[in-house]
């Protein structure tokens, strides 16, 4: 399953970058995340609850930041398992400054699904991914407003 898209956020690159590197912020903006613990440098343990039509379950697993390019982006590797199947996603995130102190966040990657998630979820997964992405950016924007 492909995961690609972009969004313009109302803050400058430095601020976005700081938020993306902060565990607490990430835990707040990534949809479904109920716990995010740092286990090592750039490595986290994540627990997520996702409920969306046939895709509902609690996921747990690891989250790693790789290929960190200070202020420019990183590659996010998420490995989550659940009773309804496992997801293994690699997403490259790039930050591009645009005019007036805005930042374009571009992401590009894909996820490998298995188990029930792959079998009955595929039909709706792209819709689910779409919704989750939207939630992510909504949360992000809110976070920018409030902090």
């Amino acid at each position, binding site marked *: 399953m492909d995961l690609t898209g972009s969004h313009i956020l109302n803050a400058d690159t430095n601020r976005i970058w700081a938020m993306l590197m902060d565990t607490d912020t990430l835990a707040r903006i990534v949809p479904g995340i109920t716990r995010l613990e740092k286990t090592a440098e750039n490595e986290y343990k994540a627990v997520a609850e996702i409920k969306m039509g046939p895709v509902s379950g609690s996921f747990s697993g690891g989250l790693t930041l790789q290929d960190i390019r200070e202020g420019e982006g990183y590659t996010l590797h998420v490995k989550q398992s659940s*009773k309804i*199947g*496992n997801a*293994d996603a690699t997403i490259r995130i790039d930050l591009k400054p645009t005019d007036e102190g805005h930042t374009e966040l571009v992401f590009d990657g894909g996820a*490998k*699904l*298995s*188990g*029930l998630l*792959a*079998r*009955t979820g*595929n*039909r709706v997964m792209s819709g689910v991914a779409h919704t989750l992405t939207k939630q992510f950016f909504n949360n992000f924007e809110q976070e920018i407003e409030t902090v």
Partner: protein
Amino acid sequence: MSNKYIGQSVRRTEDKRYITGKGRYTDDIKLVGMTHASFVRSPYAHARVISIDLSAAQNMPGVVAIFTGDDIKATGIVGVPTGWQVNFKNGDTMKEPPHPLLIATGSTSKHIGDPVAVVIAETYAAAVDASEAVEVEWEELDAVTDPFKAAQEGAALVHADAPGNLAFDWELGNPLSEVDEAIAQSAHVTSLEFVNQRMIPNAIEPRAYIGHYEEHIDKYTLYTSTQNPHLIRLLMCAFVLGLPEHKVRVLGPDVGGGFGSKIFHYTEEALVTWASKQINRPIKWTETRSEAFMLDAHGRDHVTKAEMGFDADGNVQALRIKTYANLGAYLSTFAPAVPTYLHGTLLQGLYTTPKIHIDLCGMFTHTVAVDAYRGAGRPEATYLLERLMDLAALEMGKDPVQLRKQNFIPAFNGVSEPGYQTQVALQYDSGNYQGVLDRGVEMLGYENFRQMQREAAQNGKLLGVGFSTYVEACGIAPSAVVGALGARAGLYESAQVRVQPTGKVSVYSGSHSHGQGHETTFAQVVADKLGIPMEDVDIIHGDSDAVAFGMGTYGSRSLAVGGSAIVKSIEKVLEKGAKIAAHKLECAEGDLEYAEGKWTVKGTDQSVSFGDVALTAYVPHVYPQGLEPGLDFSSFYDPANFTYPFGCHIAVVEVDTETGKVTLKRFIAVDDVGNVVNPMIVDGQIHGGLAQGIGQALLEGAIYDENGQLINGSYMDYAMPRADDLPMFELDRQETPCPHNPLGVKGAGEAGCIGSTPAVVNAVIDALWSGGHPVKDIRMPLTPERVWRAMQS
């Protein structure tokens, strides 16, 4: 003897229990103390089991026991076998890696759903809860799912000891050099590269098993949704669990459809049987539909290149085939036979093709096993031949009906005219191929069709007609022949006819009915042969303790083989009955004739009834000297040959040029399945087969993604034909008797599924050509998107 029942559409006697909800399928059965099983399955197509942690699951409420692959391994149980051996071209034995009941730690799963552990609990819900609490650590590995890709350098390996993922390579027919030569000499060669996609059988009853070990009598009972209880007992006892057969009873109660998928011996059958002894309680397992999609053996899945050479007049000169057949991860019960002896041997079709060669690779992939699915090999052969025929006609500008006729094997009855010896090992029994085609063409009203087609095209509508004429091989088959071809069992059938003292008759058949209506058709045969009312006949099947032996029901064999065994036993009954009757009537046996349920002294009105003779046999006061009492005979019938039904299927479709949507307007089927005992039931068999064949052409097909995940494993994702996807079918019949069995029957279970698929695809191709889109192939299923894309190219 005049027939009262044979040939009549007698309403089915078994229906009453089904329509009132009193059918008794395996999942309906409850035993005292019964537990329930749920499996822990691999979420990956290919992954190593690093560790299994049962600690959380073990303490969950209601859990009775948990067994893992390591437990099974410790017992020395290796796994379930295959029933057919095919050798490599060089004579080496095929690769036959073990198919374990559960995967042990350190080993790898080989398709999604491969089980690692089984949880047994007081209730099904408790078993499912606990199975979800079993923690398995996996190391995911690369997978391959496509048979052609599996053969390429660098493809992920399914079994370490099967290099190149090759289970076997195989060839059949004339020497390749001769075929190459004939193709090279041909004036026209039609070639086609295509995929015969993977089908999921989808019997509506999911598989269900109950294993029950009773310590006090040291006996196992297995209730199973199977097509062949005795074969399951044989395989499980002799090859899997090493149990003494007389201590194992296998029951196949009402079974909700099979279509091949319930022939095979599955790991879960052996597992519940084995585990039942470990916990000393009955264990039930019923699969979910999700499991059925993942685990019931799939069908078809060939990647093929086919070439057919013609001379300048359109006479077929040669056929050359290269096929990669997907066998899945493990060799299922009949798997090696399907692409070889049930496919390669049918490539003569109904044509006089003088030179034929097939070269085939049986491939392992990280997918569930592929085995016989309705038609098993013969639909693949027919698809190939009939697609080539219609396409060749389009390419050469010839009429597809005419092209077939000029290449047909001339009619032969197999009695005064010999059978037809093919280039690919088989000898056809009897046939009249032009007869069915002529009748089909007549029903279609072909003379007006092309005109209509042109007019439609002018009005922006694409109409198409597709033809398909097939011959298939049923009633599998002479044991000596199949044995020589690698079958590890005989393929006869047994039947016992037990005449009760009052003249009522109990018939024990080794065939198994799961929708075919044996309880009715067999009783029709028995009642007519004995001249007694059908109500006096009871058919018993599906119980290995009651029935002497049996090879079960598949390959359209029940009436041809099982029915013939019954007839043999009836002959024995009548022979002995005549001795008793002669004694009673004080005449010689030769003076008697048997009709309408009584023996009559020829030319007199002196007679004795069947019931009288039966009573005398059991109360032998006045009785022939030296004759044993009783009237009860068993027979085994081993057929002399396969039977060869044939027919003509014609599809008319309309293709929407805007959307690519195909509407099936008409479907005509003229089948010749030999003599017919119950026309209503035969028509029903054809209808069902047609729906499955049409389903393959237009709707169905399993989709694995590149990681080996089955991504359309539910009814929401896999398109099975629904009531509004199909038209009313137009059927007719021709009857060319089978010359080598006593009933003259050939078999009707698969015919519909064999002829229909290419007819539909040919019709769509024909429609596209008529609209100026000369495409050779569209990959099945012919979804609107694919058809639309084909029109754009």
